[in-house]
C-alpha cells in the first residue's frame, strides 16, 4: 500500500485513474493531432462522398451538383446490381458458415494443447498468414487452382483426370479463397474464448456421463457463444468487403460489391454511382450485423 496525494491506493488495481501528479497537464492536447488526422483524413472524406452520392453524373465530367436519389434508385432497379449484392451476401454467408465449422475444432484443439512449443508454432502459423496480405494468399490459390495449376497438373499426372477441370474463376474457388483468408480471424476469436473456459466444465460433464457430443453441444457451445458471435461477425463483414479474392480468384466475370465500387470510381469515373454503391454496401452490412446482434442478444442475453 502506498499513500499518495489521492489517498490510499491499491497496488493491485489496474483501474485507470486520473494521473494528477504527472503534468502532461494539457493531457487532452496529446490527442489533438491524432484526432485531427482521423477527422480530416477519414471522416470528412466520408461525408464528402456521402454528399457526392446524391449528385448527378454526366459522361465527360465527373459530376453535376444535384440532390437526387437517382444513383440509389438505379442500383436497386437494376437486376444486375441487385444480383451483385445478392451474390456478395451469399458468398459472405457461406464463407462465414464454413469458417465457423472449420474454425471450431481448430480453435478448441489449439486452446487445449498442452505442448507449449507446438501451440506457439500453430498460433504463429495462423497469425502470420493473417498479416501476409491478400495479394499473396490469392496468388497461392491461383497457383494451385488454375487450369494449368498444381492441382490440375498433379491430378493429370497421377492419371485421375484426362484434362484440366475449371476451378479458378468459379464461385466455388472464390468461396475457398475467402474461407482461407477469413479462417485466422475466426480461429483467433474462438481460441481466446475457449482459453477462458476452464477444462473442469468439460470434466464435470463427462464424469457425469455425458458423451462427448452432448458435452460439446450442451456445455461448451453455450459457453463459447460470444466467440462464435464475434468471429462470425468479423468474417461476415470482411467477406462483404473483400476485394482481392473476388478480383483475382473470381476473374473478370465474377462480380462482387467491392470490386464494382472500385471499377465505377476508377474506370468509369462515375463518382456519384461509386459513392452510392459504397454506402449501399456499408448500410447493408451494418443493418445485417446490427439485426443479427439484436436477435442473438434476445436469444442468449447480453454478450
Amino acid at each position, binding site marked *: 500500500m502506498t499513500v499518495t496525494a489521492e489517498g490510499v491506493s491499491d497496488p493491485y488495481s489496474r483501474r485507470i485513474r486520473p494521473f494528477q501528479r504527472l503534468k502532461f497537464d494539457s493531457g487532452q492536447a496529446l490527442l489533438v493531432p491524432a484526432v485531427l488526422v482521423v477527422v480530416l483524413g477519414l471522416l470528412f472524406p466520408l461525408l464528402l462522398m456521402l454528399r457526392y452520392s446524391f449528385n448527378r453524373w454526366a459522361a465527360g465530367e465527373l459530376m453535376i451538383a444535384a440532390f437526387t436519389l437517382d444513383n440509389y434508385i438505379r442500383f436497386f432497379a437494376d437486376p444486375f446490381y441487385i444480383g451483385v449484392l445478392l451474390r456478395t451476401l451469399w458468398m459472405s454467408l457461406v464463407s462465414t458458415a464454413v469458417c465457423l465449422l472449420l474454425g471450431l475444432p481448430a480453435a478448441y484443439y489449439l486452446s487445449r494443447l498442452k505442448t507449449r512449443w507446438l501451440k506457439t508454432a500453430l498460433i504463429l502459423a495462423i497469425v502470420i498468414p493473417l498479416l501476409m496480405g491478400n495479394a499473396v494468399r490469392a496468388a497461392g490459390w491461383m497457383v*494451385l487452382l488454375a487450369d494449368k495449376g498444381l492441382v490440375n497438373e498433379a491430378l493429370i499426372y497421377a492419371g485421375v483426370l484426362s484434362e484440366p477441370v475449371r476451378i479458378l474463376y468459379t464461385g466455388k474457388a472464390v468461396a475457398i479463397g475467402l474461407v482461407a483468408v477469413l479462417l485466422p480471424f475466426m480461429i483467433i476469436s474462438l481460441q481466446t474464448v475457449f482459453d477462458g473456459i476452464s477444462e473442469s466444465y468439460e470434466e464435470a460433464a463427462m464424469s457425469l456421463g455425458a458423451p462427448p457430443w452432448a*458435452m460439446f453441444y450442451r456445455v461448451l457451445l453455450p459457453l463459447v457463444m460470444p466467440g462464435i458471435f464475434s468471429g462470425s461477425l468479423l468474417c461476415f463483414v470482411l467477406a462483404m468487403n473483400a476485394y482481392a479474392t473476388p478480383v483475382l480468384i473470381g476473374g473478370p466475370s465474377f462480380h462482387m460489391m467491392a470490386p464494382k465500387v472500385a471499377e465505377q470510381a476508377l474506370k468509369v469515373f462515375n463518382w456519384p454511382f461509386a459513392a452510392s454503391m459504397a454506402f449501399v454496401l456499408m448500410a447493408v452490412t451494418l443493418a445485417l450485423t446490427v439485426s443479427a446482434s439484436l436477435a442473438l442478444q434476445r436469444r442468449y442475453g447480453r454478450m
Partner: protein
Amino acid sequence: MAGLAQSPPRFGPGFSLRIAAYFTFAIVLFPLIAVIWVSFFENKIIGFPPTGYTLKGYFNAWSLGRFHRGFVLSVEVGLMATAASLLLGVPAAIALARKEFAGREVVHSLLMSPLVVPGIVSGAAIYMFYIETEAFLDERMHVSLPLAGSLFGLSVAHTLLALPWMVRLVTASLIGMDIQLEEAAQSLGATPLRTFWHVTLPNIRPGIVAGCVFSFVVSFVDLEKSLFLVGPGYTTLPIEMINYLEWNIDPTIAAVATMQTLVIAVALMISDHFFNLTRAF
C-alpha cells in the same frame, strides 16, 4: 465402483478432432506453401511435376523494374506511415490510458474507426477527397500539390491504416504497466518528461515495438486503399502483384510473393520476441 477410483476421465483432444484441426490449419497454410514451392520451379509456366529447381524466378522478379520500384515504394510508404503513427499514436495512447475525461470512449472509437470502415469505402472516399482538394488548391490558390498518386498522399492514407494499431497496442502496454513506477519517479522529483523518458518509455517498449511492426505490416500489404491512390509509375508492391496476376501466373510472381512473405515474417518474428502476437487482436 471402479469409476470412483479412477481419476476423472481426461478429455484430451481426440483423434478426429486433431484431424479436423490440422485440416483447417492446412487450408490456411496451403496457399503460402504452394507459392513458396512454385517460386523455385524451373518451368516457365507452372507444371507438375516441376522439371527442376532454380532461383531464376527471383532474378526475373528483381530485374523487372515494376516489382523493384513497387518494393521500394512500399517500404518508403510503410516507413513513413510507421513514423507518422508513432508520432500521433503514442501521445494519444498516453492521454487515453492516463487521463479520465468526458468523451474518452468517443475519442477512442474515433481513433479506432479506420479499422471499422471498409478499406474499399475509405479508399474511394479519400481518393475523391484528394482529387477535389488538388482541384481546389489549383483553381483557388494556384498551388499545385499532388495528393493522389504521390508519396505524401499514399503515406497519409496509410497512416490512417496504421494509427489504430499503434494506439491499441501502446494503450494496452500503458494499462498493463504498474502506474506506481511513474508516481515514484515523480515523487522523487522527476519532471514529467524525464519520467516519461526514463520510466514509462522503457516499460512500454514492447507495445511500441509491436505497434511499429504492425503499422509497417498493415501498410506494406495494403491493397484496398492503395488501389485508389497509386499512379502510373508510382505503384506499391501489392498493387503491382495483382496487376501482374490478372494476366500471368508463373514462378516469377511466386518469387515476388515469397519475398513479401519473407519481409513480413521477419518483422513478425521480431515483434513476437517482444510481444505476444495474439494479444494484438
